[in-house]
């Protein structure tokens, strides 16, 4: 118990005994999970395991019925709304790539930059050199420099996924929640995305939800398998994938 207590203070993201139910359906059931600062964690689990709901809870979209959700060891996320949580430094990439389709790639990143987000700040905003340099750097990282003036809606699916990761980078959060980053990507794109996440992990804490086992293996990080709203197994990818219960859940009983 003592060990758990110290972990609670040092963890970047700490969930303990979280419950959520929708109309009697227990989406999250006594879920406990801790992410250390600088860690990258892969979350796997069959459909309906509660992966996206867990991200909804962390980002303030869904309020848990009970349980503790702490950020940086001290901030209670269950009391805050989406905007405040984003301001604190938790960024999120959605399962379905959600970029601002009618605006250019560059403007998408500009909107994501973690600068003054008040009405007055944006009304009287004038670009600065530092900001455009940051945008250039992100564009380079996500390999979209040549597409900077294209409308985001005209990008390919994989490019949209990258743009959304780029928006996370521009937001420069402490924790990145990345939901299915390689869904619908080619093998090459998947590989590049894994490289990209590893690079980002050098100075960010990341939680990745993904189905693609090749991709998870390539990340080479600790894996948590969720099932019916709680943690089924945790460990390296080899440990988790050889766990009998995990195999049972994935292949059906």
């Amino acid at each position, binding site marked *: 118990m003592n060990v758990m207590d110290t972990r609670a203070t040092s963890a970047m993201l700490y969930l303990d005994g979280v419950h959520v139910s929708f109309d009697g359906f227990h989406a999250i059931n006594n879920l406990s999970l801790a992410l250390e600062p600088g860690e990258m964690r892969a979350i796997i689990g069959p459909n309906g395991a509660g992966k996206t709901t867990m991200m909804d809870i962390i*980002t303030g*979209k869904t309020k848990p019925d009970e349980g503790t959700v702490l950020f940086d060891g001290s901030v209670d996320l269950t009391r805050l709304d*989406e*905007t405040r949580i*984003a*301001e604190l430094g938790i*960024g*999120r990439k*959605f399962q379905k790539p*959600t*970029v*601002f*389709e*009618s*605006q250019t790639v560059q*403007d998408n990143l*500009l*909107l*994501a930059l*973690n600068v003054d*987000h*008040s*009405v007055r700040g*944006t*009304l*009287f*905003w*004038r670009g600065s050199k530092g900001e455009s340099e940051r945008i250039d750097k992100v564009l380079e990282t996500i390999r979209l420099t*040549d*597409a900077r003036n294209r409308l985001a809606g005209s990008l390919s699916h994989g490019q949209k996924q990258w743009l959304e990761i780029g*928006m996370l980078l521009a*937001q420069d959060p402490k924790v990145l929640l990345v939901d299915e980053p390689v869904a619908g990507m080619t093998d090459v794109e998947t590989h590049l995305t894994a490289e990209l996440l590893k690079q980002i992990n050098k100075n960010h804490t990341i939680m990745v939800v993904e189905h693609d086992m090749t991709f998870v293996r390539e990340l080479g990080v600790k894996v948590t398998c969720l099932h019916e709203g709680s943690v089924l197994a945790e460990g390296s990818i080899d440990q988790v994938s050889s766990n009998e219960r995990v195999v049972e859940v994935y292949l059906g009983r």
Partner: protein
Amino acid sequence: MTPHILTRSLDRAATTFILIVAGLGVLIPLSNLLMPQGSMFQVPTYLVALWGKYVCYAILALSIDLIWGYCGILSLGHGAFFALGGYAMGMYLMRQIGSRGVYGNPVLPDFMVFLNWDKLPWYWYGFDKFWFAALMVLLVPGLLAFCFGWLAFRSRVTGVYLSIITQAMTYALLLGFFRNDFGFGGNNGLTDFKDILGFNVQADGTRCALFLLSCLALVIAFLICRAVVTSKLGKVLIAIRDAESRTRFLGYRVETYKLFVFTLSACMAGVAGALYVPQVGIINPSEFAPANSIEAVIWVAVGGRGTLVGAALGAVVVNYAKTFFTSGPLAPYWLFMLGALFILVTLLLPKGIVGTFNAWWEPWKARRSAGIAADEESAAREDGIGAPNPAE
């Protein structure tokens, strides 16, 4: 700061629009006042007033386009803000009548004498002064929009539900203003105006001045809208329109942005109403009718949502058509024509007049400049300078 905003807001289309409005604003009054009566170059006074009305509608359309076209807030009750601005101006004009009214009461407007009221209700105080009325023109619609928006946006009422409660809002005001004991002239509204700032409202000179002022207000409203939509705030508004929850997860306080733009838009609609009333000579509760607000949304859809210029153009085109058709033998069928127009625009020009024009014009312009670039590139290659690869 200022030159920066100006250069950013004024692209070619915006400059053209302002020049046309300014040109009309000066030429129409000049022709009315300077040309001899009956000359073919003289714009008759009734037309000056009619076009003045169109210009006010154009301002209302701009205010709707700002929130609907750029932020996705479909207000079907914007006529309420227009009418409130109109009533504020109407109250000033009523107080100016003074003892020239039918009952000759120096303080009480005729309808109050008729209702046997013996003193002015408190909310009519101050309206004998123009500056106070002018302030109320902005403040009353602005405050209502602020309170309404604060409640609605905080509770995350969006889409069709928001449209429905805006309809309810304007309908509630319609019912209120119909009542005699509400103190705004009931069914008849406010009318029989004599003068504004000491000038006779019926005089040609006053009508021309009001027309010029309306054009000026249209230009200013347009510049404000342009400054807003070309700023970073404009990009945030479009982001909210296209993916509201994504914007929230980026750390933008969506409800504050909506509240800002909704209140700004309501103030603009109020000014439009205030300029409208002295030109048409009456304001009554029918201005609150939900159908009016829906009609204003149709103007924006016809002209082109999210283009500003299109909204103003749509207001003028639809209202010109309305005047044209309702004064002829086709008058009974106007509402059918309006409905047909809306269906046709939705089917054939879903982006409206200006939006369709842009969709056709911009690729053409891009192709032309791409053609020029390609020419330069091949010229450069001939010179032995490697052009960078235009990669995906």
